[in-house]
């Protein structure tokens, strides 16, 4: 998929340039695009180093665990099929905490662990269970407290106040998470009504 998008954009661009007579601009864009990407990554580095450093303190001090304990009752409501104290719940919580604090790299292995546990709960079948769909729905709406990457981009392009989108982003992400939960419930009800699993 991504290969077609990538090649498609470049090829269509060059063909358009032939027709439009914008080949000069395309040449310039080639090298400017590459240069901007590297500049951007350097801007990203400053934020990532700082944020991941800080998050390591949050992790080692047990702050993240403490927060995930706080969210536990709420998560139990969302996953009625998972028994209390099942390891799946712990992984789901850690995964959500990692996403919440912008630790994407740490979140993925935890998410996979959670899925493994959910698969065991589902009798090892190769079809998605209700809990799996709920977990993915919440995951893809990605509740993030601090959108580090976006702040870095805004910083690189000299925004007057790079962090002023933080709260709007939280609101938007919270609405999409609530939306995800409601949509997930709706489809679950529909499945039950239709007599499918």
């Amino acid at each position: 998929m991504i290969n077609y998008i990538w090649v498609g954009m470049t090829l269509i661009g060059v063909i358009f340039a032939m027709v439009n007579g914008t080949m000069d601009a395309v040449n310039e864009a080639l090298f400017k695009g590459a240069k901007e990407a590297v500049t951007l990554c350097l801007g990203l580095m400053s934020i990532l180093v700082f944020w991941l450093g800080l998050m390591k303190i949050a992790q080692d001090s047990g702050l993240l665990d403490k927060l995930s304990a706080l969210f536990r009752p709420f998560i139990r409501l969302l996953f009625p099929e998972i028994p209390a104290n099942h390891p799946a719940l712990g992984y789901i919580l850690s995964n959500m905490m990692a996403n919440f604090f912008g630790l994407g790299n740490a979140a993925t292995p935890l998410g996979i662990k959670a899925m493994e546990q959910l698969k065991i709960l589902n009798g090892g079948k190769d079809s998605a269970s209700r809990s799996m769909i709920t977990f993915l729905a919440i995951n893809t709406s990605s509740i993030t407290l601090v959108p580090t990457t976006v702040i870095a981009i805004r910083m690189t392009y000299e925004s007057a106040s790079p962090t002023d989108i933080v709260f709007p982003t939280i609101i938007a992400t919270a609405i999409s998470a609530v939306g995800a939960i409601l949509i997930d419930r709706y489809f679950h009800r529909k499945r039950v009504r239709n007599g499918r699993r």
Partner: protein
Amino acid sequence: MHWMTVISIWMIPFLICGILLYGTFKKVPTYETFVEGGKEGIQMSFSIIPFLVGMLVAISVFRASGALEFFVQFLRPLLEFLHVPAEIVPLAIIRPISGTAALGMTSDLISVYGPDSFIGRLAATIQGSTDTTLYVLTVYFGAVGIKKMGDALKVGLLADLVGLIAAIVVVTLVFGGK
């Protein structure tokens, strides 16, 4: 809606103080731990470079050739009626499909229209508020061998749509239409 901006600006420094205080209270060697964790950030940002170079070059060529504008102009009449800038549509479409392509488009929009423009802020909010649904599905289901995804894709994409609309509404309310 000025208070939202105030929260945005105060939140991160407060969060930092909270984490540092808690760490000190729990007798974590804060500075050493910080340095240790920060190292991961260096490696992470270097590993993004090839992805972003590839994507930004393709997007820049697509824009500079006039192709992007050609496709966007068809959407403009309808979207203008809804007070949504048509420029945002390519990002909205690509966001659930590819994380790096979306990241490239976000930075392209911010560089062209400016970080403090309506389009720039909207792009930033869209980028920050949803995840790459297709990627999450592929990785999580793929890793544990789930072949029948059920309603997962539908639910994920619909939630993205909700997030998109929420982003447009919130950014318009907080920063005004222009």
